[in-house]
C-alpha cells in the first residue's frame, strides 16, 4: 500500500531557542508568521485565551527598562495560560550585585520551562542558554538582535503586501545602535526583499553593506522608491549627544513628514515604538492611515504567542 502523505511546508521549528533571526530558515520564519495569523484570530474572540500551556512556567527577565515588549510578552503568556514570573532590574537582587549567571541558576533551581530575556549586553540571551535547561527567547540584547520585533514588522508588512520577494524596504535612523534593524535585515534578506538603510554617517556602522543592504545618507533616496519604511527610535539613552548635533537637526534631515507620504502613495510606515514625536516622525505622520504603528502592537502579542507556542515542549 503506497503512502499518501501531504507535505505542506515546515511544521516544527528546528531551533530550541530564539536568539536571533540570522540562523532561522525561511521555512521557520514562515511557520512563525502563519501561526501568528491564527493567534490573531484568537485575539478577536470574546474569550481571548487558550489552555495550551497550562502548567508551563515562563520567567521574564528584563534587565533593561521596557514597557511594551514586557507587557506584550506577559499578555502572550497569559493568553496561552502559562504561569509567569516577572523579574526586573530595579528593586531585585540585581541591584544587590548578583551576576547574570547566579540569577539564572537560581531561576533554574525554581524549575521554569522557558525564559524571556532583555539585556543591555549583546549575547546575554546566548549566555543564558548555557545556564538553564529550558528554551530562551531573546527580547533584545544590546545592539545585537531583537527577533520578535522583526517578526512583528514582517507580519505587519505581510498584511499590506502579498510577497516579500522584490519588496523595497528602507530602514531609517540609528542603524548602529539598533537591534531591530539588524534582525530585520537578516530576515528581509532571506525572504528576498531589497533592503536600504538610511541614516547619518555617525549612526551608520562601518561595512554595513556586507550584510547585503544598500546604504544611503539622503532620506529622499531611501523613500522615493520604497514600499515600506521602517523608522527607528533615536535612543537617547544609548549614546551621548555628540553623534547628532541636535534632535531638531536630526528631524530636519531624517524625520518623516506628510510630504514624504504624499510623494510616495504606496509607502507604509512602521516604527517599533515608543515614537519621539517630532523627531523620527511628525505628528501627522504618526496619525496617518498609512502609519501602521498600532497594528504592530497588536501583532506583537500574536507573534509572541506563536514563538512561545512553537518553542514550548
Amino acid at each position, binding site marked *: *500500500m503506497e503512502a*499518501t502523505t*501531504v507535505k*505542506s*511546508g515546515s*511544521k*516544527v*521549528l528546528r531551533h530550541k531557542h530564539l536568539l536571533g533571526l540570522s540562523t532561522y530558515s525561511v521555512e521557520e520564519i514562515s*511557520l512563525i508568521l*502563519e*501561526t501568528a495569523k*491564527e*493567534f490573531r*484570530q484568537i485575539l478577536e*474572540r*470574546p*474569550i481571548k*485565551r*487558550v*489552555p*495550551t*500551556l497550562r*502548567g*508551563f512556567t515562563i520567567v521574564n527577565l528584563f534587565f533593561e527598562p521596557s514597557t511594551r515588549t514586557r507587557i506584550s510578552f506577559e499578555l502572550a503568556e497569559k493568553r496561552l495560560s502559562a504561569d509567569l514570573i516577572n523579574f526586573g532590574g530595579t528593586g531585585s537582587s540585581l541591584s544587590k550585585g548578583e551576576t547574570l549567571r547566579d540569577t539564572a541558576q537560581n531561576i533554574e533551581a525554581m524549575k521554569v520551562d522557558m525564559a524571556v530575556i532583555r539585556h543591555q549586553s549583546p549575547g546575554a540571551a546566548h549566555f543564558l542558554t548555557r545556564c538553564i535547561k529550558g528554551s530562551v527567547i531573546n527580547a533584545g540584547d544590546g545592539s545585537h538582535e531583537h527577533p520578535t520585533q522583526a517578526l512583528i514588522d514582517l507580519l505587519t508588512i505581510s498584511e499590506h503586501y502579498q510577497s516579500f520577494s522584490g519588496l523595497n524596504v528602507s530602514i531609517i535612523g540609528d542603524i548602529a545602535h539598533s537591534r531591530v534593524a539588524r534582525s530585520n535585515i537578516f530576515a528581509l534578506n532571506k525572504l528576498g526583499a531589497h533592503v536600504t538603510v538610511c541614516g547619518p554617517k555617525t549612526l551608520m556602522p562601518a561595512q554595513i553593506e556586507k550584510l547585503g543592504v544598500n546604504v544611503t545618507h539622503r532620506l529622499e533616496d531611501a523613500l522615493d522608491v520604497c514600499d515600506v519604511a521602517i523608522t527607528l527610535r533615536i535612543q537617547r539613552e544609548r549614546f551621548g549627544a555628540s553623534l547628532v548635533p541636535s534632535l531638531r537637526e536630526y528631524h530636519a534631515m531624517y524625520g518623516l513628514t506628510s510630504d514624504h507620504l504624499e510623494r510616495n502613495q504606496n509607502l507604509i510606515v512602521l516604527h517599533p515604538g515608543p515614537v519621539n514625536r517630532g523627531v523620527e516622525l511628525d505628528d501627522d505622520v504618526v496619525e496617518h492611515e498609512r502609519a501602521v504603528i498600532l497594528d504592530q502592537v497588536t501583532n506583537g502579542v500574536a507573534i509572541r504567542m506563536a514563538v512561545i*507556542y*512553537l518553542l*514550548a*515542549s
Partner: protein
Amino acid sequence: MDALDVQRTIRRLARQIIESINSDDEVAIVGLHRRGVYLGARLQSLILELEGISVPLGTLDITMYRDDFRSGLKERKIRSTNIPFDVNHRHLVLVDDVLYTGRTVRAAMDAVTDLGRPARMQFLTLIDREHRELPIRADMIGRVVPTISREEVMVQFNEIDDRDGVWLVEREQ
C-alpha cells in the same frame, strides 16, 4: 471500504443529520481538521441537494486544546479555525473522520465552549474504531470498525488524497 461504500455512507449520514433537525433548530456543521473539514463540506452539499436546506459550515483546529501538548507533538502547525456564525443557541454537529480515544472530541468541545454556548452539540464520525479513553460517544456513526491498537484506520478523501476510501493499516513499529 471502497469509494462507493464511502459515498453511500456519507449520504446516509447526511440523511441522519436532516432527521435530527427540529424545525426551529438552527443547525451548523463544524468540521475538525483535517479530514473532518472535507467530510463536513460534503455533508453540507448533500443536505442542500437532498432537502434544499442550506446549513452553515465551520472549521475547527483543536491543536491548542489537546491534552498531550506537553508530551510532544510531531506537528506544531495550527490550521485555521473559521466559524463564520454565532455558536450561541445553535445546534452544532461536530464532524470528524475517525473516532478513537475520544480525546479529540473532548478538545473540540472545549474549543467550541470558548466561542460561546451552543444549544446542543452532537458528534458525527465516519468510522468508530472503539478503544475510548473518555466517556464520549458518537451520535451518528458511519461504520463501527473494531480494531486493535497496533492498527491504524486510514481515511482518504478525493479532495486531498485523490481517492475515496477507508483502509485498515498495520502501523509500522
